[in-house]
C-alpha cells in the first residue's frame, strides 16, 4: 500500500503550467447564459487544442490515454487553478462512457471528436414531468419509421439544453412492454425540425435546464445507442458511471475546501471556534473524498453499487461546504457571488442522478445485502 503520486508528477507539472498560462484572469460569464455558454465553448476548444479536454480518452478521439491517477491529478490542478466550469460535462461524463461501452465504431468516430473539441455540446434528456427518479415510468415515445425513429412527447429538467447542440436519452419504443423494457436510447439534434425547447430556470433563476417537446422528430438508426429495446440497460451504465467519480471528481471538492479555508483566513473571526470547527469538518471530508478516490482507482474490481456510497457522500459534503461558506459570509451570504452560485449548484446534488433516498435504498440492498422492501 502506498500513496506515491510521483508517476503523475510530470503530467501535473505540465497541466499546472498550461493552466497558469491560459486560465482567464477574470471569470467567464455564467455558462447558464447565451454569452457565457459561447465563452465556455471557446474555452473547451482551447483545452482541446492542448489535448486537455478529455485526458483519459484514447488519442484518436482527442485524448491522451491518461491513467486514472493522471485524470485525478488533472482534476486537482484544474479546480485548484479556478479554471472555468465544464460546459461539455454532460456529454463527456454521461454519454461518452455509454458510447465506449455500447457505441458502434462509426458512432465513436462521429460523435466523440466534436464532443472533445466543444464543437458539439450535449444535453441530457432523461426526466419527464411524471418521471423524475422513477425512470422506468418514462412516456416519451420513439416509433419505428423508415430508416429510423420518430420521437414524440416531452422531456424536462434537461441540463444544458437551453443552449446545447444535441441531446441523448431513453424513449419508450414498445408501449406494450413492461416498465423496464421497451426503452430505446437515442441521440438527436436539438435544432431538428419538431423539437421545441423552452428554457426553465433553476433555483437561482438561471436557465440551466430546458423543457423539450418532440413532435415527430426523425432520428436515423445510426443514432440509436445499443440495441433497440435495451435502453434501460444502456441508461443504467450511464447512471452507474454518473454515481462514480467522474461526475464529481475529488479535485473539485478539495479545491473548494481549500478556498473555504482561504475565506476563513480572510473573513473569519479567529475567536469564533464554532465556525472554525465547521470549516475543519468539511475540509476533512473533502480530504476523505480525495483519498477515497485514490482507493477507488487502486481497485481492479468493479465498484458497482458502491458508487451510491460516493454519491451520498459527495452530495452531502458539497451542500455542507457551501452552507458553511454562506454562514461565514454572514449577511453577505445571501448575495449573488461565487459561493452562492456554488451553493445553488450543490443543492441539486442530493436530488439528481437518483435522489439520495434512492441511493440509500441501493446501498441497503446491493452493498449491505438487506432484503428488498416489499413494493
Amino acid at each position, binding site marked *: 500500500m502506498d500513496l506515491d503520486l510521483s508517476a503523475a508528477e510530470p503530467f501535473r507539472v505540465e497541466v499546472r503550467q498550461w493552466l497558469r498560462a491560459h486560465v482567464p484572469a477574470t471569470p467567464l460569464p455564467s455558462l447558464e447564459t447565451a454569452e457565457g455558454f459561447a465563452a465556455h465553448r471557446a474555452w473547451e476548444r482551447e483545452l482541446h487544442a492542448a489535448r486537455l479536454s478529455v485526458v483519459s480518452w484514447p488519442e484518436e478521439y482527442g485524448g491522451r490515454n491518461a491513467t486514472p491517477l493522471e485524470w485525478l491529478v488533472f482534476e486537482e490542478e484544474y479546480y485548484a487553478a479556478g479554471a472555468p466550469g465544464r460546459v461539455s460535462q454532460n456529454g463527456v461524463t454521461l454519454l461518452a462512457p455509454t458510447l465506449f461501452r455500447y457505441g458502434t465504431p462509426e458512432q465513436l468516430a462521429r460523435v466523440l471528436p466534436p464532443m472533445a473539441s466543444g464543437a458539439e455540446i450535449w444535453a441530457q434528456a432523461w426526466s419527464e414531468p411524471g418521471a423524475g427518479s422513477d425512470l422506468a*415510468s418514462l412516456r416519451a415515445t420513439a416509433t419505428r419509421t423508415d430508416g429510423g425513429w420518430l420521437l414524440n412527447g416531452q422531456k424536462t429538467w434537461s441540463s444544458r439544453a437551453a443552449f446545447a447542440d444535441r441531446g441523448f436519452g431513453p424513449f419508450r419504443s414498445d408501449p406494450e412492454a413492461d416498465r423496464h423494457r421497451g426503452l430505446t436510447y437515442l441521440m438527436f439534434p436539438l435544432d431538428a425540425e419538431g423539437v421545441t425547447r423552452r428554457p*426553465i*430556470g*433553476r433555483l*437561482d433563476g438561471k436557465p440551466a435546464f430546458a423543457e423539450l417537446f418532440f413532435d415527430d422528430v426523425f432520428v436515423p438508426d445510426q443514432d440509436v445507442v445499443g440495441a433497440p429495446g435495451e435502453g434501460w440497460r444502456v441508461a443504467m451504465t450511464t447512471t452507474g458511471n454518473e454515481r462514480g467519480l467522474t461526475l464529481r471528481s475529488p479535485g473539485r471538492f478539495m479545491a473548494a475546501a481549500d478556498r473555504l479555508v482561504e475565506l476563513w483566513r480572510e473573513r473569519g473571526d479567529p475567536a469564533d471556534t464554532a465556525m472554525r470547527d465547521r470549516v475543519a469538518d468539511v475540509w476533512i471530508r473533502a480530504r476523505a473524498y480525495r483519498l477515497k478516490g485514490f482507493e477507488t482507482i487502486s481497485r481492479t474490481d468493479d465498484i458497482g453499487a458502491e458508487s451510491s456510497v460516493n454519491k451520498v457522500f459527495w452530495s452531502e459534503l458539497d451542500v455542507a461546504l457551501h452552507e458553511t461558506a454562506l454562514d461565514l459570509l454572514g*449577511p453577505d451570504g*445571501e448575495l449573488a457571488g461565487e459561493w452562492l452560485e456554488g451553493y445553488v449548484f450543490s443543492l441539486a446534488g442530493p436530488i*439528481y442522478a437518483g435522489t439520495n433516498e434512492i441511493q440509500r435504498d441501493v446501498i441497503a440492498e446491493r452493498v449491505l445485502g438487506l432484503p428488498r422492501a416489499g413494493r
Partner: protein
Amino acid sequence: MRFILDAEQRLFAETLDKLLAEAATAAVAREWAAGGHEPGLALWRSLAGAGVLALAVPESAGGAGPLPVELVTAFHELGRHGVPGPYVETAAAAVMLGRLPESSPATAWLPAIADGTLVASLALPPAVPYALDADVAGLVLSVDGEELRVAGHGEARVSLDPARRLFSVTAGEVITSGAAAAEAYDMGALVCAAQLVGVGRRLLEVSVDHARTRRQFGRPIGEFQAVRHHLADALVGLEYARPLVYGAALSYGTPGFAADVSAAKASAAESAYTAARIALQVHGAIGYTDEYDPSLLIRKARALHTAWGSPAAHRARVMSALV
C-alpha cells in the same frame, strides 16, 4: 395562564390568511422581484387596512401597539404567504421610533407608517448592513448605536431570494441621538423569526400535499418511509420554534426580552431552513425550478436564515444572558 391564541387573535390570523390567499401572493412576489412594485404596494395598503402596520405603532401616534403577540401572529402569515416588502424593517423602525420622546421630530413619521402610507426600511450594521427595498421605501433609516440617521441608498444587490432587494446605505444627518439600535434589532429579529416559522410551515404544507399526490414507482411518494420521516422531522422542528416565538413576544418590555428573541430567532431559522431542505428533497427537481412556487419560499428560508443575526450569533447572545 393561557399560552395559546385567544379567539380574537385566531380570528385576526384567519382574516390575514384569507386576505393573503386571495391576493395571489406568489405572483405578487414574482412581480416585485422583477421591479413591478404596484401589486405589492397595493397589498401593503390592504394589510395596513387590516391593522398590521398599526400593531407596531403606539396609540399616541395613531397606532394600536406595540402589540408583540399580534405582530408575530401577523408576520407568521406574511411568512406563510411569502409576501414581499420591507415589513420587518418597517415594524422594527416603528417600534424603535415609538419609544422616542413624543417631542422628538422623528415620531412624526409614525402616523403614516400606521396607516400604510409610509413604507420604511432600515439598516443596522453590522448584523443588518443592507436596507431591504430601500428604493420603494419613503423613509430609509440607518441606526448605529444610539444615532439615528436618514439614509440614502445605492444600487440594488441580487439576493438568493429574488423578492429581497438589498441596498447599501449612505448615512446622512443625525436625526436623534436618543434611539437605541438594540430596540430595533430585537423587534426586527422577533418578527423575522415569526416570518421564518410561517415560511417553514407553508413549505411543510405544500410538501405534504405534494407527497400525497406525486406518484413515483407506482405509488404516492408519501408512502415511502424516508419521505414520511423527513416530513415528520420538519414538523417537529417547527412545532417547537413556535412557542419560543410567542414566548419572546410575551416577554417584550422585560429584561429577558433580548435573550428570548435570540432563542426564538435561532430556533426559527434552523427549523425553517430544515423544512426548506426537506421541501426541496421531497419536491425534487420541481422544488429546484424557479417557475414553481415552492422555490420562492425555499430561497426565502435560506436568505432569512442569516438575516437579522445568524443562529450562531443569537445562540451566543442567549449564552451571554445565562452566564
